[in-house]
């Protein structure tokens, strides 16, 4: 386990620079954050403000649970989305700036808050266009579409392809992670990889050409009209060079601006330090020891044969940033940076490595399989079949797929952009 000084040293080294890539559109960074907020409890809960988080990808962060749902909807079953001014952008319903949403972390920054708003809009569109006749039906449909995007689009990009196919095509489980409570290695290490994808600034805001990362943090206040997003500039069509801004690479390097992220209490936190401390608090073993435990476990030989898993030999690009006198080596590197390093080794940061992918795949497979509304029903169904469950909404999404079909879209034939086009149509 690292000492306090080593945690500070490592966090500093990880936040000295970060790397550009062309692989993953910028919106997916925040889709990942939205997913995390739905199923992972807050690292440092604020008494009275943090909800009980269930480890099921059921959009409780949007709909709440039990009777709470009815309090969030109007008499027609719609989310009361409003404009800040007659000409202003649509925003979450707020009272004195504080949003009336179950998951207040979804107001951490203006991108995740507008993603929250986006799913509310989808719910409303489903009702207003008559795809569903009750709010309950609309919730079920919204949740299934969301899960479909998570698996077929998001995970298709961020997981090692062999792991994605194994878990989501062939329904295999390798780690047998617990469903509830959510697995520690998922919540406190692997599914924090998205922090490495955060950019130092953003160009997706039509009203403001460059928005720095600190400017995104606008908790508990009305949406600044200059920070209204164009979702078509966040989620492109699934090809390289789609002229949509990209996330940074998945590697152990976090943008420097993440050293001082403001939180609603008024303080700032260093995200890298927070993640390292979360892993320590959860008593996670170092990354190399975790891999060795896997290989020594009941599925060890199968894992080795199927994916060629072996412990990383050294700190790779992290070695240049850490003095030998720091005492930090591949032997004691915590699981979170280890898995980021694995991504760097595996694909130069294009996607997670095998171990990181296995943890994220199983964690999310469990979260979807356990949800009351789920695209998993004893097995994973093809996109066409899931869409056929959705009636006219499914037909409309199929129409989006036909209209925007392109021979180049070989891997992700259903993606967030299809849903964006559906929601923004005539809007």
């Amino acid at each position: 386990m690292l000492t306090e000084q080593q945690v500070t040293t490592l966090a500093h080294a990880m936040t000295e620079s970060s790397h550009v890539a062309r692989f993953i559109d910028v919106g997916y960074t925040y889709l990942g954050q939205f997913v995390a907020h739905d199923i992972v409890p807050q690292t440092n809960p604020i008494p009275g403000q943090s909800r009980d988080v269930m480890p099921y990808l059921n959009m409780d962060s949007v709909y709440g649970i039990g009777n709470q749902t009815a309090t969030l909807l109007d008499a027609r079953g719609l989310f009361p989305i409003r404009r800040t001014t007659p000409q202003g952008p649509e925003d979450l319903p707020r009272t004195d700036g504080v949003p009336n949403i179950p998951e207040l972390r979804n107001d951490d920054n203006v991108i995740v808050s507008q993603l929250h708003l986006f799913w509310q809009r989808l719910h409303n569109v489903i009702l207003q266009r008559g795809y569903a006749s009750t709010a309950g039906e609309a919730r079920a449909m919204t949740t299934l579409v969301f899960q479909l995007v998570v698996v077929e689009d998001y995970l298709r990009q961020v997981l090692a392809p062999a792991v994605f196919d194994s878990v989501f095509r062939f329904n295999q489980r390798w780690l047998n992670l617990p469903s509830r409570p959510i697995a520690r290695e998922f919540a406190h290490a692997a599914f924090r990889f998205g922090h490495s994808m955060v950019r130092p600034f953003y160009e997706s805001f039509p009203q403001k050409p460059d928005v720095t990362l600190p400017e995104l943090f606008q908790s508990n206040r009305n949406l600044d009209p200059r920070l209204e997003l164009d979702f078509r500039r966040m989620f492109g069509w699934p090809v390289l060079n789609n002229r949509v801004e990209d996330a940074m690479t998945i590697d152990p390097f976090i943008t420097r601006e993440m050293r001082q992220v403001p939180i609603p209490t008024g303080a700032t936190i260093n995200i890298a330090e927070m993640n390292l401390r979360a892993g320590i608090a959860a008593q996670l073993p170092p990354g190399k020891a975790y891999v060795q435990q896997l290989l020594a476990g009941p599925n060890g030989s199968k894992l080795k044969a199927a994916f060629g898993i072996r412990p990383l030999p050294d700190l790779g690009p992290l070695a240049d940033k850490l003095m030998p006198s720091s005492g930090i080596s591949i032997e004691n590197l915590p699981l979170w940076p280890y898995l980021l390093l694995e991504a760097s080794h595996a694909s130069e940061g294009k996607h997670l490595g095998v171990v990181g992918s296995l943890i994220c795949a199983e964690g999310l497979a469990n979260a979807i399989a356990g949800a009351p509304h789920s695209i998993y029903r004893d097995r994973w169904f093809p996109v066409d079949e899931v869409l056929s469950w959705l009636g006219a909404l499914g037909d409309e999404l199929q129409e989006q797929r036909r209209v925007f079909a392109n021979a180049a879209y070989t891997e992700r034939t259903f993606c967030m952009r299809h849903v964006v086009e559906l929601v923004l149509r005539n809007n």
Partner: protein
Amino acid sequence: MEIPEELVEWVAHEGHEPTLVVNPCFIPPSAVEELAFYHPGFGNDTAQALRHVLGRDDNNRYFARADSLSGNWHEKMADVMQRLRLYPGMEQGRPVLIDDQIGNQPTGEMHGWKVVHWKVAKGRDSAMNLVHQDFITWAKPGQENVVSLFSWRPYRTAMLQPQAPQGPVANERAVLSQVSR
């Protein structure tokens, strides 16, 4: 495909892997904070790869163009690279490649800076190794133009084609480009 003599030293030949961006790289102080995020050679632990191949325009003039860019190029910079048409020429008696029309292309602004001119020339790194160097001219309203630089290792023609005949060189992998840009 045959590579015209004036482009032989600038483009990849059959069997050449992409080359790598190397030092020296430079952005003038007045623009470094704004351009470093996008610029080749800055902020990557993994070297950026690129390859130059042959193109031909509607008037049957040959030029060099870039392809096979690695994934760690910024997409806007990659877009500029892929739009380049680098025509061979001479400058003070030395061979160069120049694209003086790139400024008319619909490339993206990078913190307000736009690429308006591109020149490739031969140079030396600090160890006196031969490098090819791209001199990029950037314009931004209200600012003086700046010229930045990155370098790349030449393709090692001599090693691959020790008995190259005089005249045009075979290059089966060179890709012709006649698409209008």
